[in-house]
């Protein structure tokens, strides 16, 4: 029995090594989400702008929109913020914010300093909603349709390339809704 156990560190290392090595050369692939084509999980959480106001999943209905999971402690969020400003402020696309495991005061300071691309921001201070949503880490961006159904999920930074793809998807989803 003992003879067997002493091999575990070596085997663990091999497995990790093979995985990492393969990973370095693997094809791009999508991250699946269990919630695709399901309604946005229900919640009741304060708004960032008016802490006394509670928001619910109904606030995310009405039009095809992006939902961006972000936090001030997340360097990648800062990198993508310019792009979000472009999408939200210059192109006028509605973006809902989900401020994830963050200090609301810091979040407000941040939006004041770097411009605010969001139409609404919900405060998920202890990460409960993030858990329901299956958030891996910040940032993540979702496409919601006008009924508040999650239609697409992107993990990681949104840059111009990703945005062009998301934009195409949003146009298709909007056309579906009208048809």
């Amino acid at each position: 029995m003992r003879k067997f156990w002493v091999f575990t560190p070596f085997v663990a290392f091999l497995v990790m090594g093979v995985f990492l090595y393969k990973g370095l050369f693997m094809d791009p692939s999508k991250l699946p989400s269990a919630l695709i084509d399901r309604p946005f999980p229900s919640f009741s959480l304060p708004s960032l702008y008016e802490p006394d106001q509670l928001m619910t999943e109904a606030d995310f209905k009405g039009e095809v929109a992006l939902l961006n999971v972000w936090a001030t402690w997340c360097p990648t969020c800062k990198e993508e913020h310019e792009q979000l400003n472009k999408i939200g402020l210059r192109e006028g696309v509605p973006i809902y914010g989900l401020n994830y495991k963050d200090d609301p005061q810091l979040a407000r300071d941040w939006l004041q300093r770097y411009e605010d691309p969001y139409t609404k921001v919900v405060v998920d201070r202890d990460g409960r909603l993030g858990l329901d949503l299956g958030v891996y880490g910040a940032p993540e961006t979702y496409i919601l349709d006008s009924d508040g159904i999650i239609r697409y999920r992107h993990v990681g930074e949104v840059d111009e390339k990703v945005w062009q793809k998301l934009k195409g998807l949003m146009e298709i989803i909007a056309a579906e809704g009208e048809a």
Partner: protein
Amino acid sequence: MIPELGTFSTILALCLALILSVVPMVGAYTGNKLWVDYARPLAKGVFFFLTLAMALLAYSFQTDDFSVVYVAQSSNTNLPWYYKFSAIWGGHEGSLLLWVWIQAFWTLAVAIKSKNLPLDIVGRVLAVMGMITVAFLLFILFTSSPFERFLPNAPMEGADLNPLLQDFGLIVHPPALYMGYVGLSVAFSFAIAALLSGRLDAAWARWSRPWTNVAWAFLTLGIALGSWWAYYELGWGGWWFWDPVENASLMPWLVATALIHSLAVTEKRGVFKSWTVLLAISAFCLSLLGTFLVRSGVLTSVHAFATDPERGVFILGMLIFVIGGSLLLYAIRAGSVKSESSFALSSRESLLLVNNILFTVACAMVLIGTLYPLVMDALNLGKISVGPPYFNALFVPLMSLMVVFLGIAAFSRWKETPVSLLSSKLWLPGVLSVVAALATHWLYSGSIEFWVLLALLLSYWIVFTWGREYLTRLRIRKDWLANMTRQSRSYYGMLLGHLGVAVMIVGIAMVTVFVEHRDARMAPGDQLEFRGYTFIFDGARKVQGPNYVSDMARVRVLKDGQPFREMFPEKRKYTARSMVMTQVALDPGFTRDLYIAMGEELENGAWAMRLQFKPFVRWIWLGALLMTAGGLLAASDPRYRKQDKREAAERGSYA
């Protein structure tokens, strides 16, 4: 000519290291004493030639020899001489040379200080250290030589050292950290030598204990210096960011901390032997991983591998060889190890096992949190950040639990400790901690914050439990002064280390909860008042430095309305790289720091200023210094040398 001599010197060191890694090893196997005897002079030779190489590189820096690529990249004629010196380890190539030079230094230290160890063990240990040196020297010579030249056209001026690195903290931080990283290779080599020789007894634990303590002390110091540097140089006033680079140094520290405790059990009781060996191997492997992850740039982006495939492949190969090889050796040899004694559930052995498990789990958490974004990026699943919430949520409970057990351990005994004894000794310190924590907290702030209360409680718990244990020792005989001096240096080292933990916890909690900052637009004459201090901005003026121009502000500080001091934060522009740097003005104090950083220049001589009041922030580094002192004190305990001498004499008489 000089840089070529540097290359030759490095090549000669490589040749000697090659012989060092083969001849004594073969000698140890065949029982050829003459061959093993080569180990010590070879270790000296490697050290000599690497010192020469370092000196030649230093010379190239001091004489502004910009025909050397590395010098041109990280120095400049206007750089002050001491930064020209520390610029040696300001980049990838030079810091690798520093790394391998320190490795040679440790090898030399083992060669000199191992007079009383069995010769075949000395041969094996030095040979393993020689192999590590060989691997690094090959890496340096084939992919990252600091002596490479621009020929025939050398630039007239160098690109200057990154201004972030032009600072005292960065002169001392890398050497201290590397002393720690590389020092763990001694414990690693002893472990490998013990596995190779098949003599995995308590003796190897005793031999490697003082070395591991010294390495751990330097690692602690190195991490603390890095944190201190980030605090005053980066201008945000943070002292720990859970940055991948920081995590890379924290992981070996966590495992090394487990190791120094586990070595104690293995030495005293002869149990956990294979576990301790595994920790020794892991600690050094994590150091290697840390060195390379930081230096290769893989942590900031996996694409570093792609941009420099030669280095990437070499690093991968070396990590697989060292980590895979040593774990395989462990798997083959450690299976037959038997414990020399048994212990009860309630015993010092069990408590130290808890320590080991908690530290290992903490390290695994940090490893997962650090590598996870990297794996995501590698799999092309996007760039994500795993932030402080993750690390804090896992780390704080783990360490709090650790401290609870640390207090209980004060009264534990080897083999078996009756629970009734523990509870009879622990209730008083427990009650005292609660009372003292509530009282201190109330006196300081007049309100109760959960985290501060918890931190104070844990700190007092350490102080009162270990204090009581110490007092018991003082009362053994009548003469308390004699009792005091009778305690060993290792014991005092342990007390200091644990006290350091208590001090650090206070610092962390106080500065996290009670920090106050103000971001303000300040025109000349404007005042700002908080926490009993008044800050008056007198305006900024231009100042010319050796290799920068700066806007230096003058801020007068009044305390309770009385003039207190003047502070001079700066915004420097380094000319060679036209990089703008914030130079923070600090008023350090035992119970609080005042911290002023300049932001952007606004209209009419006004500036955006950030003022911070940081209570007890110094305690964080004070705690680390206490731990460092504790580690060094424990390592200097004469009992290690006495015991080795006695055993050497016995071997001599039987021979």
